[in-house]
């Protein structure tokens, strides 16, 4: 039997594929762009060992000992001690928003008790909603009480420096006392799934019209561009809410994730987030020339959203530039909103700081999309 493959025919197909690849610039750019982006994000931006976490210290018995103690917290590399607000309540509020990760409270007679060898205790409250973000910092405390005061406890006090440790650190894990990873991942998953499906669906909805030639007809009808845009977005908002319902039911009944805050507030924020993502999809569809391109652009947006938003890796572990990019992504803010409402029981006041960036984002993207929408075929 003759060998069924002929080189010249095979080569004809290969050549044709290359020509088509070259013609489709966006696809080609994506083929190069996505690996480069992955390299940069995984190589430089991601750090599973976040350091310099924002910490405030309320020192009710300032002394050389407590100063050393704070210094050794900072020296561990995990704690960045910031000037504390006036009251502990304000600090807790900052923790709810996510601006402060740790609150250290040193009781009034700490130094006196220490010197007397009464083994005083200090309290460290951690925002444990993301166990991955605080885990290493808490582990680093294990030996701190042993070593922190070695230099200060000299002479007659030197005996206090030897085992057992001269003081105790009590750790209180707020919002997620058992450090259950699902508490953090499952609400976050809601944002990730919505980002993926919303952007892809709307991105493809408009390019489908272009690809199948129905756009020409649609433009010839007396229909306003805004009517087309909103008309195409609305059905997906309903789809988005179905997804949210499925995830919330699963989170509550399957993974036992608590819903500490208000459900109506959460659902209202979901609407803002959905709208923000849908406008991204619409904008992509005004740029992409085919459904394939729309899908690639979705992926191009989805990848940094997943990696830089704090969904998979602690936000504070990333370098500054990556955090700035992260702040520009809707998922970052939505994750803070969802985790805030579900785990921390945040209300409107704590949620708002992450809602307005979504609105700004949506406005800007909508403007770009609307400018690019074809009213004519020019």
């Amino acid at each position, binding site marked *: 039997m003759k060998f069924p493959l002929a080189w010249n025919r095979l080569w004809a197909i290969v050549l044709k594929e290359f020509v088509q690849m070259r013609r489709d610039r966006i696809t080609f750019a994506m083929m190069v762009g996505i690996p480069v982006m992955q390299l940069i994000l995984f190589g430089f931006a991601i750090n599973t060992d976040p350091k310099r976490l924002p910490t405030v210290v309320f020192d009710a018995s300032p002394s050389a000992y407590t100063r050393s103690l704070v210094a050794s917290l900072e020296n561990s590399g995990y704690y960045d001690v910031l000037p504390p607000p006036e009251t502990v309540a304000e600090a807790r509020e900052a923790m709810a928003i996510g601006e402060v990760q740790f609150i250290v409270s040193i009781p009034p007679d700490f130094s006196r008790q220490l010197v007397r060898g009464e083994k005083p205790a200090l309290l460290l409250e951690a925002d444990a909603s993301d166990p991955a973000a605080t885990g290493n910092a808490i582990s680093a405390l294990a030996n701190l009480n042993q070593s922190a005061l070695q230099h200060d406890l000299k002479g007659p006090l030197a005996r206090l420096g030897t085992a057992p440790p001269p003081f105790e650190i009590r750790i209180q894990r707020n919002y997620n006392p058992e450090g259950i990873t699902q508490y953090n991942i499952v609400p976050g998953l809601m944002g990730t799934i919505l980002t993926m499906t919303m952007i892809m669906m709307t991105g493809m909805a408009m390019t489908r019209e272009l690809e199948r030639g129905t756009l020409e*007809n649609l433009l*010839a009808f007396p*229909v306003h561009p805004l009517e087309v845009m909103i008309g195409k977005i609305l059905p997906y908002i309903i789809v988005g809410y179905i997804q949210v319902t499925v995830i919330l039911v699963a989170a509550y009944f399957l993974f036992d994730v608590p819903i500490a805050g208000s459900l109506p507030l959460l659902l209202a924020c979901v609407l803002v987030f959905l709208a923000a993502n849908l406008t991204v999809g619409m904008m992509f569809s005004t740029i992409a020339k085919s459904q394939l391109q729309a899908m690639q652009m979705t992926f191009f947006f989805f990848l940094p959203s997943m990696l830089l938003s704090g969904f998979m890796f602690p936000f504070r572990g990333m370098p500054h530039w990556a955090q700035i990019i992260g702040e520009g992504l809707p998922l970052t803010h939505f994750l803070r909103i969802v985790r805030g409402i579900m785990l921390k029981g945040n209300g409107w006041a704590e949620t708002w700081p992450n809602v307005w960036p979504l609105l700004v984002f949506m406005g800007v993207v909508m403007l770009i999309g609307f400018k690019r929408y074809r009213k*004519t075929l020019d």
Partner: protein
Amino acid sequence: MNGEYAIDVHGLSKSFGHKRVVNGLSLRVEKGEIYGFLGPNGSGKTTSIRMLCGLLTPDEGSGTCLGFDVRSQSAEIKKQVGYMTQRFSFYEDLSIRENLDFVARLYAMPNRKQTVQAGMEDLGLADRADQLAGTLSGGWKQRLALAACMLHRPRLLLLDEPTAGVDPKARRDFWDEIHRLAGQGISVLVSTHYMDEAARCHRLAYIAYGNLLASGSPEALIAQSGLASFDVKDDDPALAERLRKLPGVQQVVAMGNLYSVSGRDGALIEQGLASLPGLRFERAETGLEQVFIQLMENVQDAPP
């Protein structure tokens, strides 16, 4: 509506990049008239039609469509014009009824259900109302498209090669429908490549490389061309070359068992044909095809 023309435009031009696709097109289509729009592929017919219905903004030129300014009142024009695209552009994953219903809603038609039903019955689509548009054959798709662009009772139809790829019977039915509509006072601008369709238009315009080359009724165009034609009753394949070399002969078309020979100087051709021994030939009527091929060759000889 002011003026008596359905379409009255002057000097419309459109360029894409450096390519001038339509160059100073002036067109007048009377009310109730079927106006044929002819020209080779890529001659700017589709671009012209798109400018007329507001899908493209002309670079230069001005004019009115149904009395509305083509530049500034495209929204008004869209409401009263039915535009049928060259490529089928309805939703293939919607049924006939769903497609029509969608269109009726876009035009905010009163009595939507009845309108859709009537539209389907007019064009014999009622039996297939629930068939998906994607599964229809070419002729039925084209009927659906016509039904859709008629649904809102437009006063002007712009049809861009509506019968491309449609069988002769369906084409004839389609044209009967067009004439019926014209009889009701609807104006029609239709582009086509078929000469039999051109002959069914009241008036014609011939456009090539963006320029309007000729316009008038089919009879007038034939008369203007000054072409004389002869039928040579012979099917010898070698004859074509000899006929082409005869003095005055500009076109030779092989048609089954005869050759159609034409040129401007009828007497000279007749002389030449007579000089070939044993050739049976007779004078014939010049067709529109010869006229248009002549027009196109003139342009190619002397590009603008």
